[in-house]
């Protein structure tokens, strides 16, 4: 499974990256968390807000940084 955090490199995006990493760890799933700062990638997904959390190339969270618990739920739902 591929998990990506896309952002412009701002503090908000980095926070999402950190929380996503802890979420993946706590979920004990086999996944690599990739951090992408190429904004064109966000735009080509048809989105315009940063940061974005994408699971297997599909955006599941846009423009918001929820707590680790909610990120876990989101990832679990996307995988199921």
């Amino acid at each position, binding site marked *: 499974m591929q998990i990506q955090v896309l952002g412009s490199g701002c503090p908000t995006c980095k926070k999402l990256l950190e929380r996503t990493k802890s979420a993946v760890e706590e979920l004990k799933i086999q996944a690599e968390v990739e951090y992408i700062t190429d904004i064109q990638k966000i735009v*080509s997904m048809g989105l315009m807000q940063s940061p974005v959390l994408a699971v297997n190339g599909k955006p599941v969270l846009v423009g918001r940084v929820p707590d680790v618990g909610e990120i876990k739920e989101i990832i679990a739902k996307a995988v199921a």
Partner: protein
Amino acid sequence: MFYPIQIFADWLTYVVLNIVPGTKLGAALDFFVFDTIKIFILLAVIVFVVSIIRSFLPAEKVRKMLSHKREFTGNILSSFLGILTPFCTCSAIPLFLGFVQAGVPLGVTFSFLVASPMINEVALVMLLGLFGWKIATIYITSGLIIAILSGIVIGRMKPEHLVESFVFENSIKNPLGLPNMTWKARIQYARDYTWDIVKKVWLYIIIGIGVGAWIHGYVPMDFLAQYAGSNCWYAVPLAVLVGIPLYSNAAGVIPLVSALTEKGVSIGTTLAFMMAVTGLSLPEFMILKKVMKVKLIVIFAAIVGIGIIFTGYLFNAIL
């Protein structure tokens, strides 16, 4: 409307804490309790309502409404939509790229870039709570006019050559259809968003109101009138310069300015300062460097800055 809160603040200050009415400490504390409660109530209600409206208008839908819009109608529409769309410096670039690549004219995009941060729900709450609806209305109206005019002026300058060429390469491959939200999802979104905002700004608000309350109670009336009254010509441009690096602290800055207004800073100067804090931001300019030449950022800042300074002088003269 907020009368019960005043009764509570009076009761807490003068009865529970037993502070003698008429003292400086009493005035400061009473002011602090009243304003803090009022602002948090307003914050919760207004942010929630704005989020519900926003759930009907995500940025992607806004873009669709604005693409290939003509000058003027496009600028007006984008300025209004800018109010509803949340703006975070980290979203400035994807927004800019997304708009331009979908065929939104540059001038219309700039109107959006001005209105979106300048007129936001947090600033609105603080203005409404601390200055009243008249000043809040003046702020919104002037902000909209500045956004509309700046966008038209920048559009007329034909600044396409000052924008990095990759911006115009359309890379939108799969514009995702956003799923329709149910009312339950909208309410949940609004609740989460309101909570996010409260978590982000509560400390600034308390510090801002705290310092404001201290000024209210301890600084003599009209103390600042001689330095920043309406007959002081350099007050407005100075306020704008000071406001630029204070971005994203509207929550802490507005209570402070509200107390300063009471001590003689004139209202036009105050408005100009608040607009500079929210509308002109150094971190945003730095980030915009990724997509446009420095020259265009300077033009953008200068036009918006002139608009704000003009607004400041105008309201110093008529209010």
